[in-house]
């Protein structure tokens, strides 16, 4: 099964909508609750990253019996140093975004903790692609 959602950069009033739709789908498909909980954390963080940093993006979700494949692709400034960005506490979020309680530098580590496979690739001035895989039956 495949679903695609559009994500608007800069629009915090819609942040989380796509993740919420995916959560509903996973529940309908009777995916194990612990798996849903983990996927939702990773998805939301990846979605908010697009809202906070990029111009626009897409969330693609592919579900089969074995795994959930999540690909978030954006048009945006890109990440100059992915290793640095992965460090807990490191953030390039704006002061406005931080005031809302985002931008604590916890997003990518939340993602890493909650998926089985994470691959981030980025091109400066073009955008970023985040690929995540969670196995459904393996637990973790």
């Amino acid at each position, binding site marked *: 099964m495949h679903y695609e959602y559009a994500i608007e950069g800069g629009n915090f009033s819609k942040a989380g909508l796509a993740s919420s739709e995916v959560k509903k789908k996973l529940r309908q498909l009777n995916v194990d609750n612990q798996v849903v909980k983990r996927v939702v954390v990773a998805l939301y963080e990846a979605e908010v990253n697009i809202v906070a940093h990029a111009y626009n993006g897409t969330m693609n979700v592919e579900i089969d019996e074995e795994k959930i494949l999540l690909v978030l692709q954006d048009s945006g400034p890109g990440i100059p140093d992915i290793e640095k960005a992965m460090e807990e506490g490191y953030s390039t979020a704006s002061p406005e975004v931080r005031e*809302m*309680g985002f931008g604590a530098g916890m997003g990518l580590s939340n993602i890493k903790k909650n998926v089985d496979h994470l691959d981030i690739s980025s091109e400066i001035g073009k955008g970023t692609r985040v690929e995540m895989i969670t196995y459904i039956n393996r637990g973790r």
Partner: protein
Amino acid sequence: MKVSELVNNLGLKVYSGESGIDKEVEGGYVSDLLSDVMGNADTGMAWITLQTHKNVMAIASLKDLACVILVKGLEPDPDMAAQSDKEGIPVLGTSGQAFEITGKLYEMIKK
């Protein structure tokens, strides 16, 4: 314990999301950092915070939290209240500080 019992025992205001007043509260989490809550809160918790914008409800819904408790007399932004009504997750309020309400809530919930 139900959200309604928290409201009655702690004298909390109910700003919105009254349809969720019978939700079970199984614990609490105190934080103003959204990713902290996203990463560490769990189903059925009451979230104590000073954040009053709509994204709080997105997280409360994704994490299946029982309710949100705003501290220091803060009120939810109109779009936060509207989202709370839509999701049926109550937004409550206290005039006290996070420290006080957390202590009281802890006393009520701990077995």
